[in-house]
């Protein structure tokens, strides 16, 4: 019997090529989108699961509170003494391993000299905790000896080419020789961090590098990624409740945390597998994703699938008239209702099976596009898990059943006498449901259009909003401390060329995050009054404010002419407000203490966007304490816009002259700036793509439905024409009904879209207000598309010769 059903289903497919084509195309595109999104989501959910122990590994995090108890800073890294004491105080810790980012380190092998990112100091037991494959060398001992280094295959190739790197030495920071003791397979793309090189942690114990003492006592250097392995099924609350006592026991004598350090700083544990989707600390190894993104894309996938299913339902019920006779015959010769239901569901399952097979082909073709867009290395291989395979095999049956159930119920209830006698009229049958389905489709499409527009508006706003400083023609070079003593002459040398406008050294640059802060105090008479709000610190030199063209509201900039400026402060306006000073002028000359330097406020700058628009502008202080010179990490050079290459050549030749042993590498600030919004940009592109797909499928459905409805009204059109109706009138008559549906869809979608986008915008400290015209524009777009779709059919019908249509009827 099933064979019979499939046979007739197949022949039906072939016979009605147009409608089958629309159905098949819609379902295929819908399913392809779903598969793409499924691959993306599965990848998001797979982060760090490659580890054998994935479920038992935790990362130790640290947060800081303001004096008023508000969390001011949350880090995914902790200070080294925590790692020193944790295993002894918590015997349940089975293993602990640490990684420290060496930030940007110049590495050299023979003539090859690069500023290497992704170099990490790593504990010798790293490979016990993380399941990374060691290709050469002994995983148990390769990271044991100080001054050992392990490379990925890629980085080995970069420095050594075809040579065997084992036991060769790489020069690190122009100071130390590191011996290559192993090669490991790069961390998989779905890992939350990707060290290119691993330097033995024991190297840090050398006083010339960091020092044993520091590892035990430096509570302020919170840059150590610390991972622990706990027993299976361990309840981490147990450790959490003992952390405060642990902190109070060991962090004694730390001035900045007072008598009860556990009030000011807290430790936490994050499950390794939660890091990628749930961790949003202020400092992460690499930018993470977010679980909400998974939900958003999952809903888009479901929406698109729903639209495609609705197409199927709509077209099938509309077309059922053509099959009424067959249904009647089958009933008369003995078919029962349930057998007919089974037959029609079988048909939709068949078409879904065909669609899903095509979708797999399309998936293979479109995956490179998604990879390019998301910067991921997704492959269809991720689908090869038994759970996924089972659901994929079942999906055509489920989707087919969902899409087919209504048409099946609808058609199987036809009365044979009527269908066989030709009394059967399509008109009213299932019409209101079809209308509701069209409304649903267009509501979804309009929501997606509005969403896309809001995303782009916000993106445009962030990129065009005045930052309060000049970001163009700014070259950023990783600063090298070898320049410290010769900096003034280096600067003079560069400025001698007219293509170089100005240059400055800073600890952090705009587009980065502000993570450094220290204690601040004002003075009432001679007694210090602590400032309760965090004031973020940037170490600068004389030229920071003019180089970035930041506006001074009061006072003056640091100046080479004042000897006392090493104990002076420049604050931003937010800091003035946070401290409680009346206005910028009022602040000038006030006594102020930051860290352990006491001095006076000499200038106040206008608030500017140091961080991205996601962050509110925070209170900031710019200092140039002599002790902070070693904190410079960046050199910003403002160049003339007309000849970039000669400006770069000038900087490079000066650099090579003063610090020949360090690589010259640079970025442009505006590129960094664009990177801040890369994820929104990608989101925007994905939204646009899927919104277009959604509306395309919806329109195909509308095309099929209107073609069908119009064919049912051919006689009416003929009669009207004979009675004198003109083409325009008929097109209007035929289009009106459909456009009404789109208008209703618009009204339904407005509040939904508004609510969703309002929520989305909450992530941004600086955001647009959603404008009313966006809604109108989206509705107009949908109406236009629908109008074009429907009227193409309507015009054809209206132009037809009435004699013909009346005769065929």
């Amino acid at each position, binding site marked *: 019997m099933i064979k019979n059903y499939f046979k007739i289903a197949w022949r039906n497919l072939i016979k009605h090529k147009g409608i089958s084509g629309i159905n098949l195309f819609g379902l295929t595109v819908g399913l392809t989108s779903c598969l793409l999104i499924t691959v993306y989501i599965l990848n998001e959910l797979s982060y760090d699961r490659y580890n054998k122990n994935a479920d038992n590994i935790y990362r130790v995090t640290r947060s800081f509170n303001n004096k008023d108890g508000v969390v001011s800073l949350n880090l995914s890294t902790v200070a080294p003494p925590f790692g020193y004491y944790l295993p002894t105080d918590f015997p349940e810790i089975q293993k602990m391993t640490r990684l420290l980012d060496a930030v940007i380190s110049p590495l050299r092998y023979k003539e090859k000299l690069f500023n290497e990112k992704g170099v990490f100091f790593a504990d010798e037991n790293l490979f016990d905790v993380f399941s990374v494959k060691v290709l050469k060398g002994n995983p148990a001992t390769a990271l044991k000896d100080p001054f050992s280094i392990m490379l990925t295959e890629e980085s080995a190739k970069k420095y050594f080419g075809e040579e065997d790197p084992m036991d060769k030495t790489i020069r690190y920071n122009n100071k130390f020789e590191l011996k290559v003791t192993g090669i490991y397979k790069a961390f998989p793309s779905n890992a939350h961090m990707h060290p290119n090189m691993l330097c033995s942690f024991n190297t840090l114990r050398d006083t010339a590098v960091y020092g044993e003492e520091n590892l035990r006592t430096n509570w302020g250097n919170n840059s150590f990624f610390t991972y622990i392995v706990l027993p299976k099924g361990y309840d981490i609350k147990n450790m959490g409740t003992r952390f405060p006592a642990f902190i109070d026991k060991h962090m004694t004598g730390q001035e900045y945390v007072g008598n009860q350090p556990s009030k000011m700083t807290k430790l936490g544990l994050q499950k390794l597998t939660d890091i990628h989707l749930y961790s949003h600390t202020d400092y992460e190894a690499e930018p993470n994703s977010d679980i909400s993104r998974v939900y958003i894309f999952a809903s888009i996938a479901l929406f698109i699938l729903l639209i495609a299913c609705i197409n199927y339902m709509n077209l099938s019920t509309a077309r059922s008239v053509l099959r009424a006779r067959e249904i009647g015959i089958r009933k008369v010769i003995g078919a029962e209702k349930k057998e007919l239901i089974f037959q029609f569901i079988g048909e939709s399952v068949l078409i879904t099976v065909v669609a899903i097979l095509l979708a797999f082909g399309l998936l293979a073709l479109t995956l490179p596009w998604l990879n390019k867009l998301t910067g991921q290395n997704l492959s269809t291989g991720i689908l090869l898990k038994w759970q996924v395979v089972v659901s994929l095999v079942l999906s055509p049956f489920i989707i087919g059943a969902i899409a087919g159930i209504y048409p099946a119920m609808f058609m199987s209830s036809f009365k044979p006498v009527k269908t*066989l006698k030709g009394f059967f009229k399509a008109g009213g049958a299932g019409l209101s449901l079809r209308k509701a389905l069209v409304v649903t489709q267009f509501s979804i499409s309009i929501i997606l259009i509005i969403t896309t527009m809001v995303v782009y508006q916000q993106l445009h706003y962030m990129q065009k909003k005045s930052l309060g400083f000049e970001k163009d023609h700014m070259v950023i070079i990783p600063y090298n401390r070898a320049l410290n003593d010769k900096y003034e002459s280096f600067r003079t040398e560069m400025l001698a060329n007219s293509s170089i406008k100005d240059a400055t050294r800073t600890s952090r640059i705009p587009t980065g995050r502000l993570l450094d802060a220290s204690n601040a105090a004002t003075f009432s008479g001679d007694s210090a009054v602590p400032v309760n709000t965090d004031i973020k610190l940037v170490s600068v030199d004389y030229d920071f404010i003019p180089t970035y063209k930041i506006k001074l509201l009061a006072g003056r900039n640091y100046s080479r002419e004042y000897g006392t400026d090493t104990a002076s402060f420049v604050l931003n306006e937010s800091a003035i407000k946070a401290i409680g000073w009346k206005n910028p002028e009022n602040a000038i000359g006030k006594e102020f203490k930051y860290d352990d330097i006491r001095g006076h406020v000499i200038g106040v700058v206008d608030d500017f966007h140091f961080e991205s628009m996601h962050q509110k502008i925070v209170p900031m202080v710019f200092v140039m304490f002599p002790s902070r010179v070693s904190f410079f990490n960046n050199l910003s050079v403002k160049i003339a816009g007309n000849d970039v290459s000669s400006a770069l050549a000038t900087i490079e030749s000066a650099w090579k002259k003063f610090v020949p042993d360090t690589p010259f590498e640079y970025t442009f600030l505006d590129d960094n700036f664009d990177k801040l919004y890369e994820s929104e940009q990608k989101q925007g592109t994905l939204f646009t793509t899927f919104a277009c797909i959604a509306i395309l499928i919806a329109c195909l459905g509308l095309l099929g439905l209107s073609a069908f409805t119009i064919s049912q009204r051919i006689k009416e059109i003929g009669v009207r024409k004979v009675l004198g109706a003109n083409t325009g009138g008929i097109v209007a008559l035929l289009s009106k009904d459909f456009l009404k549906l789109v208008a209703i869809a618009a009204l339904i979608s407005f509040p939904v879209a508004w609510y969703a986008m309002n929520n989305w915008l909450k992530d941004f400290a600086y955001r647009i207000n959603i404008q009313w015209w966006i809604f109108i524009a989206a509705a107009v777009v949908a109406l236009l598309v629908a109008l074009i779709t429907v009227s193409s059919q309507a015009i054809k019908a209206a132009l037809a010769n009435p004699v013909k249509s009346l005769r065929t009827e």
Partner: protein
Amino acid sequence: MIELKHISKWVTIGGKPNFILKDVNATVNEGEFLSIMGPSGSGKSTLLNVIGMLDEFNEGEYRFFHEEVHKMKEKQRSNLYKQYIGFVFQAYHLIDELTVYENIETPLIYQDVKSSERKAMVADILDRFNIVGKKDLFPTQLSGGQQQLVGIARALIARPKLILADEPTGNLNSKQGEEIMNLFKQLNDEGVTIIQVTHSEKNAAYGKRIIHLLDGRIEREE
């Protein structure tokens, strides 16, 4: 076999009942060949549909092999006609997407006959109707007479006791029509009860008994 008592059927138009069948009484015995005649709109097709249990009636009693059809649920009724009745239509009503073979086979599928048995039964009837050579053709590739032949083959395949034929020759030319009528006669001789609706006196004459309908009533019998 069939016993109709005071059967009436009406539709309400503008508040007034409009009778399609009015107080129809009839008895049909096994082995009969009955023709129903009457002008257009006299209710003959409706009567046939009522007998075939495809249509409902508003009033009266209908017994089929002593079972009370008027008291049955739809499902029981359909089980009943599946078992005993074969239908033949004026417009043949073959399924266009199925071949001749498949069209004839379909009723057996719905009666859960085993595949091997089905094959034998279909082969038998194809042979008997001399259409073995046409079995893989689709209905649209056949002439009207051939299509009706297939229609009758399909009606007979499940070995019904009763054949209901609604103007079986209405779409055929006279030669084809004659062949179909002879086939009916032959079937009747073999013991199959036949009720046909027809316009043509000549075709009606094949029946052993004729009922004349007018405006939903039995006008006369001969």
